[in-house]
């Protein structure tokens, strides 16, 4: 008997749907207790369009092929001491920031999507989230394996996950991830899949990956590109979930819009760290933060939101401010890292003449006017031996947890931007209208934040002095401070010197 032909769509449906059932011994609301409290109304989960039709057998097969290739590159990179082909060892500050600040978010995404993979009521949505949950585990694990070789040869990469839970600037990514994870499932996926992965992913990915390519870091390039096909699935999921919520019920629009506003701002503030990485840590920068923002957010993001306007969704609130800040962001963030370079787990360094010329070119309206003078001043102080790190701890924004360094770029770029709210008789400071709005909408949530500086003052971080706190962070003395004169620097010179001598011989 010749078998009936099944088209792919139908076949996939049979392989994902219809295996779940309406429970009869327990109310479905008890089996899926978390997917209604946020107020999102889903009238028909069957309308969910699976964004990628991948059965497990195909998944294992494709992913195994990718893993074989990736680990072959990682192995040969280690065998051939690929680290010696970097543009400069100072570039590794970017990788130090990556493994301490980004890799732990991959793990967070793994757990967050596992939560959704169990708790969304729709079978198709659950399967999509599970696939992403295991992908994100992949990203965490492959990043740890790739960067392992750097850890063997450089400082500052030895305890990324321990540090993620404690270090002052790592509470920026940590609180970002935990914000989404502690929210309901629909808000989580709006935050991670849409605001972060769909709207802003290129702002993270391009700087790190093409930055790696520009600086001879073939290991990072390889895992980055290997993860890209996963990411394109994740982005599709992000778009699908937004459309699905908006198509299911008109009451969902204001909720989704508010989440969009909130998580756009939250993710954007997290990316402030990336802006500094992109413009200052990379020895050779493929493109500036501002250029990336113009292409990936203003142009591409603008087109996306135009497309979504048919659902009634508008651009996220304060996006104009983010665009105006693009001229200032990286300079302000790198400045604070340089001033607190005694308390970072990566090396800081002042921009070279060449770098400053590049910055002048990329930021013609702001760099020479506002920022070049300060870097030159610090350079002079360093030469004279009068440069001092900040001894006082900075005040942090209650929401994004970045030190209060941002300014009123639209009116007076030298004026600090400072907002405050009151909640139950206490005062809470925020860095911007975006962060203040977020606080004011859920003060009970953001009042809980584990603010590193408060915690230090309360004696919860190893002691009252900077060396005690750094020890508690497991920052070794050789991990931070100036790159010039560091162990990493010395080692680099030794390799390059050896190379030179061998070549001469």
């Amino acid at each position, binding site marked *: 008997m010749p078998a009936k032909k099944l088209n792919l769509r139908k076949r996939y449906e049979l392989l994902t749907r219809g295996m779940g*059932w309406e429970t009869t011994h327990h109310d479905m609301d008890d089996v899926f207790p978390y997917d209604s409290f946020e107020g999102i109304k889903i009238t028909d989960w069957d309308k969910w369009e699976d964004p990628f039709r991948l059965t497990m057998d195909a998944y294992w097969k494709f992913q195994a092929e990718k893993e074989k290739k990736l680990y072959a590159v990682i192995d040969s990179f280690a065998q051939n001491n690929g680290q010696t082909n970097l543009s400069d060892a100072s570039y590794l500050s970017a990788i130090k920031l990556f493994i301490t600040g980004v890799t732990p978010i991959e793990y967070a995404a793994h*757990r967050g999507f596992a939560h959704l*993979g169990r708790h969304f009521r729709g079978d198709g949505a659950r399967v999509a989230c*599970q696939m992403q949950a295991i992908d994100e585990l992949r990203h965490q694990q492959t990043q740890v394996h790739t960067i392992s070789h750097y850890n063997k040869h450089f400082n500052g990469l030895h305890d990324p996950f321990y540090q993620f839970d404690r270090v002052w600037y790592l509470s920026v990514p940590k609180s970002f991830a935990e*914000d989404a994870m502690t929210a309901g499932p629909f808000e989580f996926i709006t935050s991670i899949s849409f605001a972060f992965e769909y709207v802003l992913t290129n702002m993270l990915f391009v700087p790190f990956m093409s930055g790696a390519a520009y600086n001879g870091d073939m290991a990072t390039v390889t895992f980055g590109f290997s993860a890209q096909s996963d990411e394109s699935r994740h982005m599709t999921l992000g778009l699908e979930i937004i459309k699905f919520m908006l198509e299911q019920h008109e009451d969902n629009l204001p909720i989704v819009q508010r989440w969009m506003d909130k998580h756009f701002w939250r993710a954007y503030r997290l990316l402030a760290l990336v802006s500094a990485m992109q413009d200052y840590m990379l020895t050779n920068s493929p493109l500036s933060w501002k250029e990336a923002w113009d292409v990936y957010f203003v142009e591409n993001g603008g087109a996306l939101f135009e497309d979504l306007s048919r659902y009634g969704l508008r651009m996220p609130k304060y996006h104009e401010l983010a665009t105006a800040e693009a001229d200032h962001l990286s300079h302000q963030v790198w400045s604070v890292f340089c001033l607190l370079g005694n308390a970072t787990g990566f090396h800081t360094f002042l921009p070279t003449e060449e770098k400053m010329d590049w910055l002048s070119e990329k930021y013609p309206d702001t760099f020479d006017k506002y920022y070049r003078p300060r870097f030159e001043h610090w350079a002079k102080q360093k030469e004279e031996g009068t440069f001092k790190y900040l001894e006082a701890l900075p005040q942090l924004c209650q929401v994004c947890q970045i030190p209060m360094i941002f300014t009123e770029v639209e009116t007076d770029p030298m004026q600090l931007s400072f907002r405050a709210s009151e909640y139950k008789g206490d005062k809470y400071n925020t860095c911007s209208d975006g962060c203040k709005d977020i606080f004011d909408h859920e003060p009970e949530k953001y009042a809980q934040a584990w603010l590193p500086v408060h915690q230090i003052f309360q004696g919860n971080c190893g002691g009252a002095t900077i060396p005690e706190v750094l020890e508690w962070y497991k920052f070794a003395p050789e991990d931070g401070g100036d790159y010039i004169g560091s162990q990493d620097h010395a080692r680099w010179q030794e390799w390059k010197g050896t190379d030179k001598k061998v070549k001469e011989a």
Partner: protein
Amino acid sequence: MSIEISAKTIQPVRLSYGNLKERFGDKKPASRYQEAVYDIQPTANFHYRPLWDKNHELYDASRTAIVMEDWYSFADPRQYYYGTYTIARAKQQDVAEHNFAFVDKRDLFDSVPEEVKQAAREILVPLRHVEWAANMNNCQITDECYGSNFSTVAMFNAMDRLGMAQYVTRLGLLLDGNEETSLDAGKKAWMEAPEWQGLRHAIEDMFVLDDWFELMVAQNFVLDGLVFPLLYDRFEKKLTTDGGATIAMLTEFMDDWYKETVRWTNALAKVTAKESEANQELLSEWTNKWTDRLVGALEPVAAKAFGADGIEQLTEVKEELLARLTKNGITGLKRS
């Protein structure tokens, strides 16, 4: 030549990440398994309580009554991290694919006696719902567990169960030339046929269990410890004797999978029971509770599958399971 010389002069300054150095020393580089799964999960300084569970921190060891001094005492004996896991499964799926293609191309089902096909429809096809539930339950464990070694092993298990639910579905489609009647009948049986209702009830009770480690025991120790030997092994053998070797070919994946999986469940039982008297008591309480419940639920299925022989088959499987768990440190089990 120059490369060789410089490569020789480059000595690493450390061999492992700090957490692994603390755990395993710095004499040799850590393994990829160790790097991938140890101490990745956050353990401290959480920012916000989950809106969906205000009684716990985001990651909270007290989501189970099991207490471990170090949640990383458990290590997967297979040493699976994502790369080795997918590569292992890719090989197995290659064999499975080959088997499915072979059966399809040669029309091997044509020679399987109708009673055997019917038996497969009635006993094997409903198992797609059982695997689907196992997927949900392991996803629940991934969500709620404590430690990245646990979330890794549970995540892989969850995806395996989805894969196996899909293999059973494909078997169901082959049984009727893609007419879907077998799948529809299987679902109807799962929802209504008396022999499946006890099991479905027990599984629905598992969906709402509070303690993820109890769910681990109920699903991965007990239910799997009964269903796989009874239905994918013994029942398949019976089908083979009756002329259904073709069907057994299509569930080879499940057989291999189970042999592999008991390695980590055994290791987990051992480590957890050894930790303390209290853990050991919880494990035996949960094992007894779910063995009673699930053996009872499987009795009508066994009777349907094996006829008069069914209860004896089930009892043997149960005894094997309890003997194995006892050997791995869960004492105080109620043997018949």
